[in-house]
């Protein structure tokens, strides 16, 4: 395996493709389930690829936001206009009222069309606390599964042109690669570069959500016409065996296994 230099830098990605959602709350004098809007916004941030404006941020952007939402009294076009003032694409409006039990109404209001695109209602016994799992369940009912897929980006650069780039065995082009590669996150990926006459490059990286990981590959030419006893990789193999059976066996057994994969169950 050639010597190679890897520099992986994770930095926050631009949000150019992400839908912006403001979570706003409208209460009819109900004191229970305080800060539910904030908790819903937090769940959205942690589990989706949406750009979320929580109620506190909305108040920072517009001091009179609560009064504006209250005046709308749930009217979708009116709430959509509030969304326009917050520069978002959608408003997730939480209505909290009380008729004996606490009644919650969640509505997705598209700012451009001023239409309700999804809604659900829930009745909570007065004393019941709302668990995060329940909030996530509501969001999964309101939003399609694609929303819950999160992504990160990989940028691959190399010191040579024309090297084939594969990510988890999928070919992604040749260097120099244009732009960023969008991948599911958080996940681990194996980035490989190969070019004739050059030693192959491989590295394993972890991509966090909404982050960009840069891989800068330094590829070196394969060993030329050196006498066999001067080639460094021969010494690597000989050295591996010479140290002892443990190392020799370890190197052998750690060869890529093409008949099995490691399995995990994820809740």
């Amino acid at each position, binding site marked *: *395996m050639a*010597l190679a230099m890897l520099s992986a830098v994770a930095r926050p990605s631009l949000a150019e493709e992400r839908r912006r959602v403001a979570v706003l709350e409208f209460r009819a004098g109900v004191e229970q389930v305080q800060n539910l809007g904030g908790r819903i916004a937090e769940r959205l941030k942690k589990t989706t690829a949406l750009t979320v404006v929580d109620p506190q941020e909305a108040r920072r952007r517009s001091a009179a936001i609560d009064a504006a939402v209250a005046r709308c009294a749930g009217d979708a076009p009116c709430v959509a206009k509030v969304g326009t003032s917050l520069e978002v694409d959608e408003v997730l409006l939480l209505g909290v009222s009380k008729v004996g039990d606490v009644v919650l109404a969640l509505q997705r209001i598209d700012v451009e069309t001023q239409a309700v695109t999804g809604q659900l209602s829930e009745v909570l016994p007065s004393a019941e606390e709302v668990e995060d*799992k*329940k909030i*996530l*369940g509501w969001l*999964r*009912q309101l939003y399609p599964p694609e929303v819950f897929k999160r992504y990160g980006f990989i940028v691959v650069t190399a010191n040579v042109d024309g090297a084939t780039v594969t990510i*988890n*065995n*999928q070919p992604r082009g040749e260097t120099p690669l244009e732009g960023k590669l969008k991948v*599911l996150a958080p*996940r*681990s*990926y*194996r980035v490989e570069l190969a070019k004739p006459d050059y030693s192959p490059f*491989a590295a*394993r990286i972890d991509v966090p959500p909404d982050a960009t990981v840069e891989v800068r590959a330094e590829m070196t030419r394969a060993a030329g016409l050196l006498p066999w006893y001067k080639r*460094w*990789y*021969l*010494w*690597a*193999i*000989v*050295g*591996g065996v010479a*140290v002892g059976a443990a*190392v020799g066996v*370890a*190197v052998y057994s*750690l*060869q*890529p*296994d*093409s*008949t*099995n*994969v*490691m*399995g*995990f*169950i*994820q*809740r």
Partner: protein
Amino acid sequence: MRLLGLAVATAAGLAAACGQGTVYFTLEAPSEQSLSPLADPRADSIVLTDERTLVQLGPPVSAKGEAGVETAIGPIRVGTYDVRMSVRGGGLLLGLARTRDVTITSGILNEVTLHLRKPLAFYGAGRAIAPAGMQALPAAAQLMALDTTLPALTEFPAMAELGDPGPARATASTHDGRFLLVGTKSDIDVVDTLTIRRSGRVTLPGATAIRSIAVAPDDHAAAVVTDQGVVVIADLPSLLAGRSPGELLLVLKDPAARVAAFHPDSSQIAVIAGPPWENAADNCAKAPPATLYTFPVDGVAPAARMAPPGTTDVAYDAQGNVLMASPCNAPGVIFENGARPPVGGPGVYDIISVGDRIAGVLGTIREQPVPIDPDSPRTKDPTRPFGELFVATATGVSRVALPLPKQPLDFVGADGFPVAIPPLSPDRFDAYDVALSPDGTHLLIASRLRYSYVTKTGMPQRYFELKQSNITDYYCDLEFIENVYRLFEVDISSGALGYQAIKGIEDGKCSTQCYDCTFGCRPVGSATRSDCRLSSGFAPSGISILMGSS
């Protein structure tokens, strides 16, 4: 340089290890606690199996744990699988997920979502019973459900709100358990089993009663049998995703169409057009005719031929042979063209065919001696009535006795005194709708049991008599024929009853009269017989169990 070579050799080995590949099985379970197998405190293990080979994929792992946790299950061989994930606890199957055609490839990150569901049973009402006498039983709800993992008598509150206000007539679940199709009068409602909420609907033009639904094993199509014939939903995935499934055509026009079944490879459909089960076995000497149709899923030119008279159900076995159930047929379930010998026995209305197993419930009743009769503990040489279920495999047929309930009579006779008759054994047992749990251990049976107290010629029978010097002074008689619609769950290996509940009572006859025979036998009091009829409730039907067989 030599030292560097050694270091690089080790580094090379480590780097190579990263290229093996991984597979993540991500669990998706309902967030509602009562619907989630993972929230069941009894859950203790999760097992992954390949349904094609029945080989386990990795060792069992603990079912306890927080959301977001990853549990390693060791190396999984690359290949294509039909993945089955079981959540077990206390010896019970508490939850199941099934996904077909999962390909695991080396060297890459494989991701598989497994949709975990409880094996809930759903049912509707074939017929409401017109109330008479005291209203004793509740009417049918739109869609009713049972949690088959919970103790007896635990009904599960089904939450779906269907479009039609009347009760469902038929239910069927997709193979992966993610969706339930519910048929009402003319609508098919799609219920998302993640939330038990309706997620779609399609109206079948011209239909006024949906009789049954069959879903293809590959979940790509569904056959809906109505009072007009058979409609094939050829693009079921679109309907399940909330999109239009395209034009729905009446593929088979036959108002007598009753039930449909898919070939194991999902390419063919078999349909029986014949009498409703209530008419099928009433008079076997004059059993109504029946027709068998088979046609490909694209519905070109159904081929029709005669089926045994009174046939009520059709199924395919694992080899693709057509099976038919006719309760009048003494040999039992027969194979078309004699592909295999008949199995079972008389009185089978509904066939269960799964894998290499064929199961059903016979209509025979046998009084068998028991150590003690719980209904009449002082009875000498007590006997109890037993029905019978059978399970046929390639190696043979096993039969299990099924205890049947006696019916106590607790009403007042014409003379104002209680009718003192020991509890009656049923004289007829019709298990007209049957479903098998996904682990193959329990049958859910919708049945009609008939209890009679009449003479052999059908006349009222004396139940009380006073004699002097061997001459009758006074007597009372009872004319009683009652149908009881029961839903019950039975362990298929032992016959032990689990859940059981009476859903409907329908008295054909119930009247008493007493006679004073001092000067010829004359009615005491009014000449009109005292009416004791009671009718209420409904006949459950359209049973299905998520990821089970029906």
